């Protein structure tokens, strides 16, 4: 997330977390916060440096597309997330690996080759990758797929078929709509499509038997989200760290919306 602005750019903090369940207890590994100062001048250098350092991407094959400064918090966070996912698939065996998001590849944050390699590594170590998306744009008959689930008693999954792929994006997972517990929530669930269908269903069954599910969402993912979310208190602490370590003075920029429209102006959307 963006934790402040400087004269030339912005300060970004990212943090990642993995959660696993072991002997009925949840444990976590949290990495970060990592703080970056990114500017229009250094954004590409920074992004390329991280890619080459952590994903074995040769400098000449690094991302060459457009990098928007405002999107840098998300881009760097995605790098960390992808790195964590890759590390997990390389270290776990015979496990269920839950990702936050989808298994869609071909985006700047999910290069196809990288994603394919990640899933292949997981498969080779007998891991099954399941990705839960809280939001989806996939629609069927004009409706979001998560709203189009027929009224079956949960746990249930609806296999989707014939979803259009828009190149260069490609779906590396078989897309399901899953309602795993009673309640109104349903999620898009991507399961590595190279896994045989019966094993995909078995993977979900193992998930149901091994993890707590609340509102159809796995507890491990919920905890990972909670653990890596920055609280206001942590943002203040990071700002304090920066001011003390780098002698940067934090300045509150005037909020133009508030300034112009008073109580009708929206708050700082980046806060």
């Amino acid at each position: 997330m963006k934790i402040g602005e400087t004269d030339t750019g912005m300060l970004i903090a990212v943090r990642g977390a993995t959660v696993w369940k072991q002997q009925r207890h949840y444990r976590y590994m949290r990495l970060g916060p990592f703080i970056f100062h990114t500017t229009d001048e250094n954004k590409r250098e920074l992004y390329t440096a991280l890619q080459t350092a952590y994903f074995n991407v040769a400098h000449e094959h690094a991302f060459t597309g457009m990098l928007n400064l405002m999107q840098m918090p998300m881009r760097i966070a995605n790098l960390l997330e992808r790195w964590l996912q890759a590390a997990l698939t390389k270290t776990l065996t015979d496990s269920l690996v839950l990702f936050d998001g989808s298994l869609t590849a071909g985006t700047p944050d999910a290069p196809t080759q990288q994603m394919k390699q990640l899933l292949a590594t997981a498969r080779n170590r007998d891991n099954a990758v399941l990705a839960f998306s809280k939001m989806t744009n996939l629609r069927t008959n004009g409706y979001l797929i998560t709203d189009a689930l027929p009224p079956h008693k949960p746990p249930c999954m609806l296999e989707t078929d014939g979803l259009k792929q828009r190149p260069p994006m490609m779906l590396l997972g078989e897309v399901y709509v899953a309602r795993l517990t009673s309640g109104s929530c349903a999620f898009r669930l991507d399961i590595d499509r190279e896994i045989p269908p019966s094993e995909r269903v078995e993977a979900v069954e193992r998930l149901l038997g091994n993890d707590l599910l609340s509102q159809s969402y796995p507890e491990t993912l919920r905890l990972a989200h909670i653990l890596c979310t920055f609280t206001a208190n942590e943002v203040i602490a990071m700002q304090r760290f920066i001011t003390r370590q780098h002698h940067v003075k934090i300045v509150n920029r005037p909020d133009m919306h508030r300034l112009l429209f008073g109580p009708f102006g929206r708050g700082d959307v980046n806060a």
Partner: protein
Amino acid sequence: MKLYRKEGNILQILSFSNETVEKGDYLLVEDADAGKALIAQVIDVQFANVPGVLEELLRSLPDGGELIQGEDYDPLEIAPHITYIQDASLLICKIRATVENETLTPSSSWLPSRSQSTIRKLSVPMLLKLAKVDGKLPIVLGGTKDSSLLTIDASGLDGRLNIITGKKETGKSHLSKLLMLNLIGYKATVVVFDLNGEYISLGMTGDGKRNAHHDKVHVLTPSQNFKVSLKQLNLHVLLGILIHALHLPGTSAREFRRIWQSLKERDMLNLHELGEAIRNWQCNQHVRDALFSRYHALVNSGFFTDESGSMLLEECLFRAKENGGAIIVNLRNTSAIDRQLVVEYVLGKLVDLLTSWKLKVAFLFAEEAHLYLRETYWDDIVTRMRHFGIFTTFITNQPDTIKENIYRQADNIFLFNFTNEHDLDVVSRAARVDAETVRSIARDLPPHHCLTLGKVVRDFPMVVKVKALDVKTMGETRLFFKDAD
């Protein structure tokens, strides 16, 4: 520390974990540009309302209420900063004064700069110096938290009404002994109504030897070494005893006055003749019965005698007048009626001696005064007797036994620990203190620590650990299991 908010005379100051500030501490909020500073006392320490703390706490406990186990890889070492922010505290402070050109004023009407003000702890010696709590007659009450001594001036007790109160076994009697011995040291005359015989060994050290005060401590035990003959009594003192302690009705009192005058004219003032005179007096039978019953009460008390013995009380008072001294009226093992009788006599005698200027001043220490002081004396003591030169210190563990108007007029209050809300409410009615200070600080006082309020500390409430005394303690509770160890 940073100034956060000011509301009325309450300051809220943000403090961090490396700044150790506790309740009772004084802070100096200096605004260099304004050339002024506020003196504020911390009356409560709260957690600062740091945004996100609730989320932080909640997410550390999601595993069925147990702390979730895990590892944090924190290469930049942000965690100490997070802890620093989370542990920030909010100091609720009461503004006590403004310092300008080294002069104190009780004003809190100005607002120091929030961004430019510097805040630091004000040591007790510095505060005492600023408040000019000094003098020629120092009494060291004890040590403060910053290891300095709290010294008051004995003149702060002169002409004042003092209250020492607190829960049982918090050190009230100890403080009253300390004050008393210091007053004796300055040649003051002290009279103590000692309900439990706690003060009778003030002249002895802890190991039973004579101490420096031995010759100045005079213990008077009614019916033993303290008796009075009728000849030594003034009629109005005796009438006071009869009316107030023995509840003699007015008509009977009038008859008694005639009997007394008749005996006095014939120089026959003794117990036997008084009894005979009542028996033979021409009056209503009910009046005679009333007089007889009081007469027997006087005789049975053992306090009155026909022996023309020494006038012990006067002698002791006059000796004390010369070099200072304490007259301990030992009321232990004295019945409730006899106690009132003795107290009426002593107070009457004191007023006599003071009004005739035979005595200049007497400091009266009254323990649990509600057990022997009649209703009307309370007002007398705080209003009338003050003008005669009786300056009272009440000592009690039941603050509600002292009337509200006494609290309102108290000049100094030495407050020990109380946890009961009702007790704190009662004490907080005192005019020289604000209720928040009393409620907040007194509740957390450890044993032997006293919150000193009033003129002796120039209205700067201060917490002090009362210093130890090398005198033989007699106020200990008798225990059944004492020897079990």
